[in-house]
């Protein structure tokens, strides 16, 4: 249900002229909700940034969420989180 709450808040903030980006869990829900920008994460509810006490993973999720702000649109911009390898920093899918 949080998928809907963050999407609806984002839409209203966006209507006020402020760009938004949200993290979401469920493809099924977000394809119907259609927030302006959303990053799907492959984690369970309660773990939106991946793992506790893993600041690099948490910031990786935040960076990819912010990166949606650079997408030209049109909305909705919906992308999946891509895991990064620790050794190279490259993305592996």
């Amino acid at each position, binding site marked *: 249900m949080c998928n809907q709450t963050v999407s609806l808040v984002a839409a209203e903030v966006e209507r006020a002229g402020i760009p938004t980006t949200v993290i979401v869990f469920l493809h099924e829900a977000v394809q119907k909700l259609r927030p*302006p920008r959303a990053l799907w994460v492959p984690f369970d509810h309660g773990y939106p940034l991946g793992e506790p006490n893993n600041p690099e993973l948490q910031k990786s999720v935040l960076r990819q969420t*912010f990166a949606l702000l650079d997408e030209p649109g049109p909305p909705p911009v919906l992308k999946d989180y891509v895991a990064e390898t620790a050794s190279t920093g490259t993305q592996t899918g």
Partner: protein
Amino acid sequence: MATMNKLSPELRTFLQLYKWHEIDPIPWAAKTTPLSQSRVGLVVTACMTMADQTPFDAGRDENDASIRYIPSDTDPRTLVNTYPAQAFDHSGLQADPDLLVPINRLREMEYAGEIGELAPRVVSLCGHLPKPRALIEESAPDIARLFAGDRVDTVICVPA
């Protein structure tokens, strides 16, 4: 991909039958300020409050759309989780509140120059709102006005 498979059978059935609120038309505000110069607003939905704030009442007809404003210099470890339901596994939150309220992570990104700064107030909600009318009509417009007043350049929303 996260799926509904790991949710409780009751919640999974509820969500499969639930009529999601379609956003139409989809609003769109283009980014005009580089992220490294942006004031970033944060919205979290894990029913977190400061110790001296009124707890959320998530059991109130499942429709407590009220807002708690949390100063962004707050240590997330001092926040109180007032979400009584087990809609999500709380063990991660208990181990590391930044997992759902990433004030420290965003501060680190601020100090590293990745974002301009974290906005002065974090918006905290209860995300479990199957009847979102009060959210749509009252709380979300209030949040938009708050961020406009705080001259926020962009907003990131983190679910629970």
